């Protein structure tokens, strides 16, 4: 691998200039394309005409990887309150002793399971079914739509962060939508289908964690 240094020159395709342009290598803070954080002070190639960052050398990958991990070690979202009610109800159905402190464990299990079993494409349909069922219940009972929200905040280990990141990349969902979809999947497995394999696995995890 050729190690590039600040001040090195090269050429690259610049989409802003719509041409193959000369570049110069500099250190920059570069954001991630999904708007979640940035890698700071990494070596990049900038267009010598418009100064846009157009090239990232592989030597910057370790710093990018670390920045991405750091960004995701805290997972936070404000969700419609019903989602956390459903998550807590599913946990209670698994174990009457499982409190809100086990939310992270249940979500971590699902993140890992969805990644390992390549089931991320099932999330969107599960979420859609959940939304439609809620809407149906609301209309049947003549209830107004609720705007109540509750905050979900978790400090997570690098493994859970990596699984969450992988799911985001596979589904192209933002953090909030992904959490809502995973909770919808838990609701479907535990409260609707009463999947005994899933329930036994979660009971085992809950016993270890309590």
């Amino acid at each position, binding site marked *: *691998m050729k190690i590039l240094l600040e001040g090195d020159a090269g050429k690259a395709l610049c989409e802003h200039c719509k*041409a193959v342009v000369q570049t110069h290598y500099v250190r920059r803070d570069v954001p991630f394309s999904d708007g979640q954080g940035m890698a700071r002070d990494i070596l990049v190639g900038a267009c010598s005409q418009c100064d846009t960052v157009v090239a990232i050398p592989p030597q910057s*990958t370790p710093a990018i990887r670390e920045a991405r991990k750091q960004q995701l070690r805290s997972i936070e979202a404000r969700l419609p309150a019903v989602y956390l009610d459903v998550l807590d109800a599913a946990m209670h159905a698994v174990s009457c002793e499982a409190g809100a402190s086990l939310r992270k464990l249940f979500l971590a299990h699902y993140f890992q399971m969805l990644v390992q079993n390549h089931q991320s494409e099932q999330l969107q349909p599960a979420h859609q079914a959940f939304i439609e069922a809620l809407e149906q219940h609301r209309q049947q009972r003549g209830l107004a739509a609720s705007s109540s929200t509750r905050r979900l905040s978790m400090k997570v280990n690098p493994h859970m962060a990596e699984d969450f990141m992988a799911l985001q990349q596979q589904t192209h969902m933002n953090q909030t939508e992904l959490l809502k979809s995973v909770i919808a999947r838990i609701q479907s497995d535990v409260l609707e289908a009463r999947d005994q394999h899933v329930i036994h696995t979660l009971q085992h995890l809950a016993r270890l964690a309590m």
Partner: protein
Amino acid sequence: MENGFRIARRDVITALESGNYLHVSRGDIEVKNLLASGAISASEVAEIIRSCKGSHHSSSPHHAVASVEVHVLRRRGWYIKFYVIEPDTWFISVHQ
């Protein structure tokens, strides 16, 4: 097309093995480029590309600079998009 594929596959594998490649940026770090973010290694990407045949390959001119041919490989659920501007191979996307 078959010949274009063989040349592109040879060039991209050589680039991955030597480390002489670059990632495309449009002012940011493309999260769909898992090679750039280190979620997959160069040797793993090379292994996927080695298993590709012509039927896994397509190519088209770059939308901004038509003289640059953009190659796409779809294999084992992976989507790998790159082009070559001599002497470098440039990765646009590497994702599932």
